[in-house]
């Protein structure tokens, strides 16, 4: 990788990720993964948490990484699966399912888009000893697609559909990902937001407010929408 790649601290981890590896992670570190990861979003959470479905036997001993995504995948005539690209989906929507998910599966890492709020790190991730990795740029689906070596299994494909099923993916050098939160609940996004927020009010200086206001939950530029 050209440019400033070498200035970024980079690690390659195998899944299941060990306690020591998790402990040593710092926010802003670039991560590549080897091993198994599983996808999950709305319907998987509902299936496991609300409908009481059990996780496939033995799966979570081999994998402790969950991925908020739906792959661009197709199922060939001979029952083989091919994955073209994978892109994470925004994670904040799944916050309410995560306490149950961590408890039931022992999952320790969530990969997704956009991270969670500080409150969710403090209240959900830190107690579960879990960390969050964000995909980079989000739209880098082709790069991540390259890292997927094999679809080991797809669970509940018929009930949940291609986009919502639980895909078990064997990956190699899967990334880049960035450590967004660590075991203490420090967040890279929160850290960056703090720095950016300091200059925001100045941008609006001298610009008259519009004559008609809007109802809304926040008009504070330091707040976030998630």
């Amino acid at each position, binding site marked *: 990788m050209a440019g400033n790649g070498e200035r970024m601290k980079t690690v390659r981890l195998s899944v299941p990720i060990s306690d020591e590896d998790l402990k040593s992670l710092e926010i802003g570190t670039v991560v590549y993964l080897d091993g198994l990861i599983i996808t999950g979003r709305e319907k998987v959470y509902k299936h496991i948490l609300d409908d009481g479905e059990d996780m496939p036997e033995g799966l979570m001993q081999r994998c402790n990484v969950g991925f908020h995504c739906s792959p661009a995948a197709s199922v060939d005539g001979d029952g083989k699966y091919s994955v073209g690209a994978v892109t994470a989906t925004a994670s904040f929507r799944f916050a309410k399912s995560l306490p149950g998910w961590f408890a039931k599966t022992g999952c320790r890492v969530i990969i997704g888009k956009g991270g969670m709020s500080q409150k969710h790190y403090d209240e959900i991730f830190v107690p579960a000893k879990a960390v969050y990795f964000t995909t980079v740029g989000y*739209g880098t689906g082709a790069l991540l*697609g390259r890292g997927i070596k094999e679809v080991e299994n797809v669970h509940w494909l018929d009930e949940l559909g291609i986009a919502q099923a639980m895909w078990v993916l064997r990956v190699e050098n899967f990334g880049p990902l960035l450590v967004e939160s660590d075991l203490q609940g420090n967040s890279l996004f929160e850290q960056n937001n703090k720095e950016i927020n300091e200059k925001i009010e100045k941008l609006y200086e001298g610009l008259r407010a519009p004559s008609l206001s809007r109802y809304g939950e926040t008009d504070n530029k330091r707040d976030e929408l998630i």
Partner: protein
Amino acid sequence: MIAIGQIEKAAYDIMLKAAIDIPEDYEDGIRGMQKGEKGDLSYFVLEAMLENYDAAREDRRPMCADSGLPRYYVKAGNEALIEGGFIALEKVLRQATARATQDVPLRPNRVHPISRQDNNNNVGINAPEIDYSFEPDADWVEITTVHKGGLFGTDYRMLFPGDGIDGIKRFFLDVMISFGKRGLACQPAIVGIGLGGSKDTCMVLGKQAACLRIVGNKNPDPEIAALEEELKQMGNSIGMGAMGFVGSSMVVDCHIEVGYTHTGGMPMSVHSFCLSSRRASVRIYNDGRIEHRTDPNWFTPYTRRNTVEWQEMVSA
């Protein structure tokens, strides 16, 4: 007469191109932004994006797994002759969408808004959208496909004449900041702004400004072009870059389109065409010649006309 089969094939081909090959103008724009980017994290993100475009091209796989909402824009020359007419054209555009969804593959994103029923082919009620415009003295039809993603990064607001340029700048900043945090809008984006028109026109103009004008293109009205430049600079000096990290890469380019509006109002829409700015165009002539481009060339002097009669400008 343009054979309908030729239109189907061309419409299918551009769907493949759009999903896989990032337009040159956008990629060059990202390279340019990267040169000026001082934030380490934001710089790193841009680098990963550029690598991702290479990976998509080399492996012939979609650049982003969220293949957005695939749709078509059709510009018909006044002299164009289409076999079977526009009903046949609309049928083959739906066919091409379904075929491309299976073959690329594109993600079958289109679902019924309430039942969430998915036909698994990106075709359904009012999908794909097909928008039309016309061109005088032309014996061709042009088809552009856009796969715009992004649940985030778009907003609309009714401003008033008294709000003036300040109001425009404020609302622009509001949208950039609110959706820019954590990079929800997948910036840097081509930001399109619709000003004026009726509310629906305002949304349509902003969307078309984002998706159908290339990086580097300027509005022919010098006053609007100056505002485009000013807003672009403003977006890039928020202090926020790719993924909402500290930096400067927010707006690859800013495009404004205007429409005459109610004398009491100044509606404004903002649209962000994300880092997977997917578009591809094709022109097919009556005699069967065919030309592929990445510039939709949608806004012509005719589409922006300001008079009752249309006359080609003889000379400026």
